[in-house]
């Protein structure tokens, strides 16, 4: 433990102390600010019964499915749109309108279109959340590839296809990876919206069900779990980024 770690812990500690103080003072009823002790007890209970892990499992499955689909479509489409002006003109107006619509607005249709699926309807909402940051960052990356690299490759004998795979793709990788990181973050944030369709399991549905029975302590457990897991995923993506982009050298 060194001074840097101490810095990281200062604000979370203050937050916990304040929370504890407010809980002990009993200023607010427990459904407005659930006491720290109550939340901790629920946390421990949900972990020991394994319920929390079931919720986590289904949420992760849905987010991964939606995110994978968003990457599979978003990256190639982004490369195409960044590379070809005519494809850009063709697709951009439509995507630019659709991306203004929040993922939660798609819930009614997700329920109608994918009613039978445990995963599909929620994955669709996550897909909507993750898709646009991936698409937009990929386009930015491709458009930013220095013309010098492309011309060098041409004079070295590369075909247009080879330039796409051997120059444009690796050169725009920094943007693509940050698009993926932002995409999975927003996909994860769409969880509550994605799981408000009456699923039995999932952190989002756990929050919604708990709130309808006024178990606000459990709502907080769900919120904290989403926050912590999102934080861990973001760290993981940062690690992947810096190891794949070691050629940038800082």
């Amino acid at each position, binding site marked *: 433990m060194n001074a840097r770690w101490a810095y990281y812990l200062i604000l979370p500690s203050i937050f916990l102390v304040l929370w504890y103080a407010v809980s002990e003072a009993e200023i607010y009823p427990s459904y407005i600010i659930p006491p720290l002790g109550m939340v901790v007890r629920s946390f421990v209970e949900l972990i020991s019964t394994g319920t929390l892990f079931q919720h986590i499992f289904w949420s992760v499955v849905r987010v991964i499915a939606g995110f994978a689909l968003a990457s599979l479509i978003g990256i190639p489409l982004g490369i195409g749109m960044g590379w070809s002006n005519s494809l850009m003109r063709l697709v951009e107006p439509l995507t630019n309108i659709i991306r203004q619509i929040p993922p939660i607005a798609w819930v009614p249709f997700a329920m109608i279109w994918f009613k039978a699926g445990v995963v599909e309807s929620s994955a669709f909402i996550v897909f909507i959340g993750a898709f646009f940051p991936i698409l937009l960052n990929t386009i930015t990356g491709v458009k930013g590839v220095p013309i010098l690299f492309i011309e060098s490759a*041409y004079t070295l004998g590369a075909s247009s296809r080879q330039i796409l795979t051997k120059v444009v793709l690796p*050169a725009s990788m920094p943007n693509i990876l940050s698009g993926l990181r932002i995409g999975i973050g927003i996909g994860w944030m769409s969880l509550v919206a994605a799981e408000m369709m009456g699923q039995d399991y999932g952190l989002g549905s756990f929050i919604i069900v708990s709130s309808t029975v006024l178990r606000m302590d459990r709502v907080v457990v769900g919120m904290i779990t989403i926050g912590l897991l999102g934080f861990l995923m973001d760290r993981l993506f940062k690690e992947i980024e810096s190891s794949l982009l070691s050629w940038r050298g800082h």
Partner: protein
Amino acid sequence: MTLIIKNVSRTFAAKGIMIQALDNVNLEVKDEEFICILGPSGCGKTTLLRVIAGLDKPTSGEILLDGARIENPGQERGMVFQDYSLFPWRTVIDNIAFGLEVMGVDREKRYERAREYLKLLDLEKFENSYPYELSGGMRQRIAIVRAIINNPKLLLMDEPFGALDAQTRNVMQAELLRIWEKKHKTILFITHSVDEAVYLADRIVVMSGRPGTVKEIFNVVLPRPRIRTSQEANRIRDMILRSLGSQIGDAAR
């Protein structure tokens, strides 16, 4: 190899204004010749080189390489740019081997060839380094062999040492001559430096200011390695400076 530049003109349209970069340029380059092109900024030197590389098209006229009209970029014309053009995401060896890779040469063979060139440059220990780990001079040397490994008939160089300090520049010039003599290349080399041109070239082409056209051609018949400060070198430098100077005067009027 023979390169014939025939009545080449190039006009650009910028914001509705037509700018003529090249006006009726004619030049014939013989096999294994080292030609330097000098001229004031904006005289179209780079445009000329880009047209020869196939990265740009002439508005009129044509360029013939061994009788065939140049339309597109091709491996038989290597190009070295002024700015650092190594692919930053590739290691040194994968940069050098890029041309062989796109030709479909398998990894073992292309690494073998690339290592020969690394040895020629005495940079073997940087095989797995990334460009950011190298000095500017090293990057340009690698950019040169990356173009040469394709065995081009013609090597086009656009102020390749322009960004380097004077000391490194001199070393690079000597090294380029060494590679040129060893690999028997024909080189078209753009520079701003009269000194560099006199040190390197068999013939020096002086271009006039915009629109660019061939103003004068000087033969440099000094034996190599050349002494930069020799009387003869000074005499040629003086002639070229006069040729360049008269058009600076023109521009001032």
